[in-house]
């Protein structure tokens, strides 16, 4: 009596009896399997650092990019499925230009974060689609020139952060490191240092394993060169060596048997 619809109307993301959306949670697991992204907000800058996983010998490393421009003044770094991120980023770029065309003004970072989050949420509530396996960190500035860092996740939540980490071997460990070490009013150099230190918690040190982007108001986003990065890393390693030495020197010699 009833016609069966040959359309994709069966939802994939449904509630479990105890109120979980397992597809969304599984998507977050996919994010954890991606490589690390660290975002730090300084007093007048935003730094996004990403872990560069080792590339296969025959692959061109320049074609793997985790940091992308959404617009002239907005930069995004993502963790999770690269293909899903590519789709999200292209939709976001189109939305940014569309906004500029209709409103003759650049979209705020909050608007873009909200747009991406809305897109991610809609894919948890539609028939026939699965959530995006992507979390992203967006860096930019408000009209008052204040640095801003936004996070989006597969559930479609978006929030603003002073510093955060997503993806990688141990998200939690890096997040705790940032909580302990972030302070307000970090200079550009200190923000870079903090980002690199946070990444070094989970990444083998070496400038070939990291990429860093620095955003300042009114200036195009700058990718830190591998020479500059190596300098910062060497400096941090030296500092850590000296800290270890002084601990060893000041420890009393245990003469008890």
């Amino acid at each position, binding site marked *: 009596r009833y016609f069966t619809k040959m359309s994709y109307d069966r939802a994939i993301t449904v509630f479990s009896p105890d109120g979980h959306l397992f597809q969304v949670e599984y998507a977050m697991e996919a994010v954890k399997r991606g490589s690390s992204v660290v975002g730090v907000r300084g007093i007048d800058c935003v730094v996004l650092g990403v872990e560069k996983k080792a590339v296969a010998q025959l692959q061109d490393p320049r074609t793997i990019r985790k940091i992308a*421009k*959404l*617009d002239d003044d907005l930069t995004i770094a993502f963790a999770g499925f690269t293909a899903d991120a590519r789709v999200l980023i*292209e939709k976001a*770029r*189109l939305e940014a*230009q*569309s906004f*500029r*065309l209709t409103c*003759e003004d650049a979209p705020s970072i909050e608007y873009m974060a909200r747009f991406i989050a809305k897109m991610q949420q809609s894919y948890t509530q539609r028939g026939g689609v699965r959530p995006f396996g992507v979390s992203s960190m967006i860096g930019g500035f408000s009209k008052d020139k204040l640095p801003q860092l936004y996070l989006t996740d597969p559930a479609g939540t978006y929030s603003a952060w002073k510093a955060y980490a997503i993806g990688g071997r141990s998200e939690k460990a890096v997040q705790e490191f940032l909580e302990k070490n972030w302070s307000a009013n970090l200079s550009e150099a200190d923000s870079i240092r903090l980002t690199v230190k946070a990444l070094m918690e989970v990444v083998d040190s070496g400038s070939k394993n990291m990429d860093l982007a620095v955003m300042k108001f009114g200036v195009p986003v700058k990718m830190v060169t591998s020479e500059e990065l190596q300098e910062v890393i060497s400096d941090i390693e030296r500092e850590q060596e000296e800290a270890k030495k002084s601990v060893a020197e000041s420890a009393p010699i245990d003469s008890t048997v």
Partner: protein
Amino acid sequence: FEMDSTFGITGEGFAILAADASAARSILVFKHDQDKIVALDSHKLLVGAGTAADCVNFNEYISKNMKLYELNNDLQLTTKSAANFIRGELATALRKGPYQTNLLLAGYDSTPSSQNGSVSLYVMDYMASLSKTDYGAHGYASNFILSVMDREWRKGMNLTEVLEVAKKCIHELNTRFMISQPVFIVKLVDKDGTRVIDINNP
């Protein structure tokens, strides 16, 4: 439609686009500082003559689409690609609701291997014709100044010489064109990008 005076001239390694700065409707002039020349990206200029709404709307639409292309592909379109894209948009709209705008596109393309890039000028009209030229003009003004340019233009002119030709064109208009257009905005594109220049003091 034809009241707007716009023209473009190429020189050695650069091109200029000039447009009258009057915004008018019927017998009333709204302003004498209307900038009709838009920078599509760091090394391209587009000037539209015609119905102000269509010109502005179309130019903005083109410039945002080119920006999107730039972001998605991490490289700029060549002048030739841009010209063909623009012409394609005009052609698609032609049988639906044409854009009433005549365009001149000037752009500088650097070649990755050498320092010497090339400059090109494209003339397009509202019916989606496209041609690459050394110099061009639109509107009633073209009746007067194409002959001036035919006589004065030579290959390989430097900026001073090209501006002399431009000055002669504007002088011709001020002498013989019924519509008074006291102010012209002139912009230049070369390897360093686009900028406004003062015709008397480059």
